[in-house]
């Protein structure tokens, strides 16, 4: 046998193969997994360099595209199984984000393998269809710091003591009993970031002493933040069914306190809109009987329901009966959407939040684009009453108001802000597109407003 000498050998010394494995790893983990595995045929030194990387990410591009889902699924399973079999050394991060892969028996073996190899970050986002049931070997992954699961069934055993190292938990469309979720959260003492989405009718009490970031999305029955003193950022997109909302109206609880009563370190609060997608037909609009509850929006031939029983409505229940005990000294950003300016309780929530946040810098509110039913007799006394303190918003710099219809309560709110913000720099107003006549009326009123800030600019964004 004669060794073939390639031209390449005489071109110069090898630039890369002798670099330390830490650098090789740094390069290989930035490549798609297929390119990383391919390096095994570059040269004899490169044969197994890929096999000791500590991060394995399998996405939709790791096998050839085909319209036959089962063919793709089989390829993915084969590829992942072989890669794991050839791998040597610890695996710190394992991620599958593949929409073709559904529940497959091999997945159990993979998780078992990972549990024996010091897995720290596990992300499983597999396809729609049959929900995959997470095997019990997951609960043996003692070193887990990050867990992200989508579309699966999770059933922690009773003896499960929690993930002691877990810092980030993200459950998306996961079938798990509410008790199990609560107990899972409370048994992960280092938990800093929690994200729960697409849950049905969840009633949750969160007890997480180290929690800093909270994201909740979906249908909720009740949320109570029992022990979350370090919470810094809250982002909620929730909705409630009618019967739950009505039940709340009857109760004497103050939701605001239950939810925001124990978060003195809050820096950012965001209340988003929750959309439900329904593909019906294109180019259609419809009107509905309950303008306060649901709004339809057409976007690119899909129909979307916006649910109005939103976070803000939830917070408004019981608000007028209590006095807020806490100040949010670190709260700098508030973003609340689909505010129903006809409901004075919702306005009260915003005002209470604003006046309890002495360092508030940025406020972003979007209205509800409803034409008020009671347009002829708004309760403007609300603004006169002494329940509104005279405290100035001393740090408020930026205000953005969108979906403004120019209705009386909205205008009063704008006046309120302008009068009390001595360092305001910009107040932008984006009207809802629909009524030019209304916009003109709004502008006329705005021009009259008194301003506390000499530098403040009121910007009316006209499409």
């Amino acid at each position, binding site marked *: 046998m004669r060794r073939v000498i390639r031209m390449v050998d005489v*071109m110069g010394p090898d630039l890369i193969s002798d670099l330390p494995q830490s650098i090789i790893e740094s390069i290989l983990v930035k490549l798609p997994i297929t390119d990383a595995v391919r390096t095994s045929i570059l040269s004899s030194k490169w044969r197994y360099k890929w096999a000791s990387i500590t991060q394995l990410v399998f996405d939709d591009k790791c096998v050839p595209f085909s319209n036959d889902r089962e063919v793709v699924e089989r390829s993915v399973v084969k590829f992942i199984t072989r890669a794991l079999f050839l791998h040597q050394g610890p695996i710190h991060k394992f991620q599958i984000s593949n929409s073709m892969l559904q529940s497959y028996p091999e997945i159990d073996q993979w998780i078992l393998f990972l549990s024996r190899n010091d897995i720290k970050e596990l992300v499983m986002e597999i396809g729609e269809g049959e929900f995959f049931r997470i095997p019990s070997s997951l609960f043996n992954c003692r070193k887990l710091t990050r867990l992200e699961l989508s579309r699966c069934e999770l059933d922690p055993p009773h003896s499960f003591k929690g993930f002691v190292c877990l810092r980030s938990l993200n459950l998306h469309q996961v079938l798990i009993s509410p008790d199990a979720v609560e107990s899972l959260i409370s048994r992960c003492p280092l938990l800093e970031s929690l994200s729960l989405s697409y849950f049905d009718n969840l009633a949750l009490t969160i007890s997480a002493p180290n929690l800093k970031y909270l994201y909740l999305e979906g249908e909720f029955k009740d949320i109570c933040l029992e022990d979350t003193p370090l919470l810094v950022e809250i982002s909620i997109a929730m909705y409630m069914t009618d019967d739950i909302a009505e039940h709340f109206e009857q109760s004497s609880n103050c939701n605001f306190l239950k939810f925001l009563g124990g978060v003195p370190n809050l820096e950012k609060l965001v209340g988003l809109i929750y959309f439900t997608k329904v593909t019906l037909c294109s180019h259609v609009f419809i009107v*509905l009987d309950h303008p306060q509850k649901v709004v339809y929006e057409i976007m690119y031939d899909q129909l979307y329901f916006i649910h109005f029983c939103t976070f803000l409505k939830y917070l408004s229940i019981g608000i007028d009966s209590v006095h807020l005990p806490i100040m949010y000294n670190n709260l700098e950003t508030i973003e609340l959407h689909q505010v129903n300016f006809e409901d004075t309780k919702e306005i009260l929530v915003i005002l209470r939040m604003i006046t309890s946040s002495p360092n508030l810098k940025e406020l972003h509110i979007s209205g509800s684009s409803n034409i008020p039913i009671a347009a002829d007799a708004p309760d403007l006394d609300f603004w006169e009453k002494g329940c509104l303190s005279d405290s100035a918003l001393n740090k408020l710099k930026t205000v953005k108001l969108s979906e403004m219809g120019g209705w009386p309560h909205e205008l009063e709110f704008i006046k309120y802000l302008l009068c009390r913000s001595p360092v305001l720099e910009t107040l932008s107003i984006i009207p809802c597109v629909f009524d030019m006549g209304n916009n003109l009326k709004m502008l006329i009123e705005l021009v009259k407003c008194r301003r506390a800030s000499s530098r403040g600019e009121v910007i009316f964004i006209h499409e």
Partner: protein
Amino acid sequence: MVSGMMKPYIWLETSDGSIQQVEQEIAMYCPLICKEIIQKGMGSSKNCAICLPQRVSPATLSLILDYCRFHQVPGRSNKERKSYDEKFVRMDTKRLCELTSAADSLQLKPLVDLTSRALARIIEGKSPEEIREIFHLPDDLTEEVNGQNIRHPDSEADIIAETSISHTENVFPHKEFDDGDIDDGIDPALKEKIDRYKSKPYVFGNHFEHREVEDFARRLNSDWPERMQELLSSGQERKTRLFSPNGNSFLRRNACMFFHCL
């Protein structure tokens, strides 16, 4: 703790034995140098110059110091830093490899990440032959047997690699392309409206209530001909007409509509 005065300059010795003076503030951006100064008190004079690791040549040191000089300034925006980084890594592969190695030995992790990303970009999507040529890798997995080139004894890794090669040919366009260039066949005006939507703070749920849908569909069918007439007969004014408070009373009572893209 540093004893004595904080001097503005320190002395560094590179692999070739040459010694140079560097502003302390800038050099301290490298963790290794920082440790040498603080823990061992080195670098304050020519005699006790900090010996840099073997992999740091004068040329690469100069590049590293440029990087440090830019990034140690606190006021810069992320955009500025990113822009600088992108220009910074434009160099030939040999220098890029040397730079990565040197940055690693100085424990300057952000620079290692930057350069490895650049190297990964070079490797991504290329055939083995191209990669071997760029990095001067020997093709020592193939041997000639009786006049024919054969692959070294099969290993599982080769099998995976083989399958991966044919796979990647069929795969979607690479990340090398700018997102903006990908043409997914949508009309640009509509696309712009969609993009406007994407920037809004909406969260998309995925379940819907059948009851609501059916009610909705029923109502839709009953009003449909009337509604369609209005939609078709108006053009731009569609938006204002339907929302005018003086308009159709049915609408006024129940109106909640958005027309953002029709």
